[in-house]
């Protein structure tokens, strides 16, 4: 397959993740959408690295996967705090901050 096809898939994943970030409200789902965007970027990396015959792309993708795991862990910890404080699930209701208050 031409690498352009892979890049296309990665773009679709990236944009789908971004779309989810814009239309969804549940912070759990938002976190997953961010993961989609990271994975889109990762696929682009591996595909382009294949073209260059360079392993550094694989290392980068590996690093991104690990950092994403760290990020998810801390994101879920904060979500547990959000839920523990108030049984809310909707970022539109998470609005103590801002000019109104």
């Amino acid at each position, binding site marked *: *397959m*031409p690498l352009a096809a892979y890049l296309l898939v990665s*773009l679709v994943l990236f944009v*789908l993740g971004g779309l989810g970030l814009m*239309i969804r*409200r549940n912070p759990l789902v938002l976190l997953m959408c961010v993961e*989609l965007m990271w994975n889109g970027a990762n696929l682009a990396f591996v595909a382009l690295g294949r073209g260059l015959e360079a392993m*550094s792309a694989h290392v980068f993708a590996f690093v991104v996967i690990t950092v*994403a795991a760290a990020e998810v862990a801390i994101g879920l910890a904060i979500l*547990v705090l959000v839920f523990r404080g108030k049984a809310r699930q909707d970022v539109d209701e998470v609005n103590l901050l801002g000019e109104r208050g």
Partner: protein
Amino acid sequence: MVLFFLLGSLMAVAGASGVVVARKPVHGVIGMILNFLGLALLYVSLQAEFLAVVQIIVYAGAVMVLFLFVVALLTAHAKPPAMGPSPLRGQGWRAGLVAVLLLTALLPVGVVVPGRAEPWEGDFGGVVRFGQELLTTHLLAFEALALVLMVAVIGVVILVGRPPQRRRGARGEGGS
């Protein structure tokens, strides 16, 4: 390889769409897992065998189990999240428009990239080459990565762990 690509990209895109449209977070998690399996297939077809394994073990395994666990923990007793129509009406199609615009703007970018994924040969993408690359040229990045993980662990522990003891009459900032 063409088959791997077609199947992988189909699974990845279907899974991603599932995450975006699923009403329940649990279904989103399943979509994510489908997406990760599809990506692993794509990695295999790109001769990134080690990454494919990591993708399945770390992402589809560890990360998504964590997600499932939190979804179960947080939504077991709560009433199903009030999703329905978005509180900001019209936001959906506007976001869709933005997404379509972005995609069409980036499309020409993707198409011009040269190169093909075949043939599958040599030790490129294998664990030996990967290990050599990671622990020689990228040794410093590897160490920094370890630090990132440690910071994440400390962060999670102080965020959700209970403080050992608190003095009586202590006053938090809350409510000020």
